[in-house]
């Protein structure tokens, strides 16, 4: 912690944050029965991945002044944000449809296709 405070923020630290967000998102997806909760978990997962992209694409964080991904990292992050927005819109529409049909948003009830 003190290393960080002393100005030694590195790519790895960003990766740790991303890992925490990713794990939280996955747990969120695994635990939430509310479909919107699952959706939020997905957002978290995507955000964790985005942090990694930005970290790898940042020249500021790069140890030798040359980032791993360069501009590509940020472009990827932008696309991920866009796709997340799109995904959120579709997922919400599906959720509403499910709610209309089953009068619930409990994903445990959505098992009509079980084996």
């Amino acid at each position: 912690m003190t290393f960080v405070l002393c100005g030694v923020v590195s790519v790895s630290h960003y990766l740790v944050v991303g890992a925490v967000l990713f794990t939280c998102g996955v747990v969120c997806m695994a635990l939430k029965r509310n479909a919107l909760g699952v959706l939020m978990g997905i957002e978290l997962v995507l955000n964790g991945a985005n942090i990694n992209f930005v970290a790898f694409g940042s020249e500021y964080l790069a140890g030798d002044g040359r980032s791993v991904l360069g501009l590509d990292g940020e472009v990827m992050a932008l696309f991920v944000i866009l796709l997340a927005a799109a995904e959120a819109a579709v997922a919400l529409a599906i959720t509403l449809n499910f709610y209309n049909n089953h009068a619930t948003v409990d994903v445990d009830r959505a098992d009509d296709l079980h084996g």
Partner: protein
Amino acid sequence: MNHEAFGLSTNLFAFLDWHGFFFLLFAGVACVAAVMVVLSDNVVRMALHLVLSLGATAGLFFLAGAEFVGAMQLMIYVGGTLVLLVFGVMLTAQTQLVALRTPAGDRVIAGILAASLLAVLVQAAFSIESWQKSGQGVATAPTATPLGMALVGVRVDQVEEENLVRPKSGYLLPFEIVSVHLLVVLVGAAYLARAKRRRVPRSVDLVASADSTKPMSSVAASSTLVAGGPK
């Protein structure tokens, strides 16, 4: 900025690195809020914590020198996607649905899994030597212009020596694909989420009798709100 010059014994405040401070702040907020998203059962609270987490992430982006991405994070995620989510929460906000409890067994299993996944990821994060070197602390040029040029197909950041002869391509095509994709998604979402006409009872009978031998009949019978077709 040479970190060798700043030992542990130095004055914390005098030598406080604001960059490191804000990193810790945003990272902490992002992580804590994310954990809170997981832990809270109320979907409205979950949404609030998510906003916090995403906003803090945007701060992290600013810190990493990706100010355009951070801005987009705030505008699209915090400003757009989460509003959408909140709308969804409100549309489905019935009391019994707001707080659906998860079985304790699942929580335990999920905790174990999360711990192992986190361990794996953190181990991976520190497994490469070069990733642990801190940055030079050199202020970098704003990235908005290169990004914009890259999205229309020109890589100004790569305009150098041999790349003039054999230039790298920009992101014009992916940009177009993503934009069309967004358009399609919005149309599809609007179609899926549109207001449904109530089913005519007679046709329900017809469908029910026609499909009486099939197991789907229960679904059909239970869902009287299924659309009869496009308006």
